[in-house]
């Protein structure tokens, strides 16, 4: 980042910095983390900033909140390149690696309208197993239908 962009995203005292998010997906990352803005944390979002590694990238800083491992792991669905730094007193105290969990529960929607998880009366959370990491392919634990990367991105970014 150049000086101008550094100014845009100044250092935080305590909290979490999610860096190297693929360009254009910062809002989806926030959504996936369950951060709506109404929690009261100061949230800084930078989109489409220059990156040596990615060309362009997004960046999210959430003050006074340390993301939990399971929240971080969900990120792999849409931001496999992301790096997560936990900040305390302006210092990076921990770098968390993003690791795809074995199961994805409740975030995504099965594409099969006949699946039990799609019946509003039944209140069954969706559950997906990871079939392949790259390209991402998930399998509904209930009806067995595949959920492809393109659909995962569509659901999480729209």
């Amino acid at each position, binding site marked *: 980042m150049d000086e101008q962009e550094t100014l845009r995203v100044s250092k935080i005292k305590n909290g979490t910095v999610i860096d190297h998010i693929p360009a254009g997906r910062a809002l989806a990352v926030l959504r996936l983390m369950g951060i709506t803005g109404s929690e009261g944390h100061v949230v800084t979002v930078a989109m489409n900033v220059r990156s040596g590694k990615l060309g362009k990238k997004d960046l999210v800083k959430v003050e006074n909140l340390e993301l939990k491992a399971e929240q971080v792991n969900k990120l792999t669905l849409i931001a496999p390149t992301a790096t997560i730094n936990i900040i305390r007193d302006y210092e990076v105290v921990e770098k968390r690696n993003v690791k795809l969990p074995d199961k994805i529960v409740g975030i995504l929607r099965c594409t*099969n309208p*006949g*699946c*039990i*998880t799609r*019946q509003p*009366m*039944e*209140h*069954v959370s969706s559950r997906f197993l990871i*079939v392949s990491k790259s390209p991402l392919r998930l*399998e*509904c*634990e*209930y*009806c*067995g*239908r*595949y959920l492809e990367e393109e659909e995962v991105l569509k659901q999480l970014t729209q």
Partner: protein
Amino acid sequence: MWKFRDVISILDFNREDLEHLFSMTDRILERLFDVGSLLDGKIVATAFIEPSTRTRLSFETAAKRLGAEVINLEPHISSMAKGESLTDTLRMLDDYADLIVIRSPYEGSAKHAADVCEHPVINGGDGTQHHPTQAMIDLYTVRRLKGRIDGLEFGVVGDLKYGRAAASFLYGLTRFNVKRIWLISPEPLSPRPELMDRLKSLGVDIMKTENLEEAVEGVDILYVTRIQKERFPDPAEYEKVRGSYVITRKIISRAREGLKVLHPLPRVDELSHDVDDTPYQAYFIQAKFGVPVRMALISLILGAF
């Protein structure tokens, strides 16, 4: 090994499990169904929220022949008609019965039922992939008529996209060392990638073809299925494939000696009645094995054997 197990998918069972089930079925047939009231005092609940003739009635018959009482959920005259959820209905059945057999139009409902219920749940047909007890009957029929499942060549013809009996039969075959499986269907009814991937990962020799006559010549078992009209999202799509294959006496006259034709039934127009009185016909025998196989299954799950 079997006691209190849920029966959701045929893939939950290994070869040893299935062989044990088949020996118990042999015993029941040897004793002409007279195995005593092994399940006296037990209650079996059936919850069939989708139409069924053979599966429901054979479960009911099997349970009664073992001395169990049967309660049937009638969805159209139960609180489900008032809008009660399947989940709440299952909780109630779990309080009343020792074993629950479920068929629902919602895919994955048997797995959900097993999660909700403390008592064992048997999947009586669920979605497009799982009908485990039908597969058990089909495999038993082959073993009984051919003396083995290993080394045989199979043709599975019909609706491989939506047909759960075909999918379960195919999964069941992976538990044995079969020589080859031919998947015979018109392109719009060809298997979903989920099914193909799983079969490939299980190391089966699979051939796909649309040419029924070519495939029929080499197989020992021809497994025919109905086009699942009720599962087509668009009725126009069904009309396009309707009647696209019909098994007739003439077609199977090209087959090798000893060919047996299986069909989970009901049939519509895909299997001609002129096959009924040929030596190839095995589907009525297959249907007859529904009761003894399910008797063995229920007994094993409730710990009576």
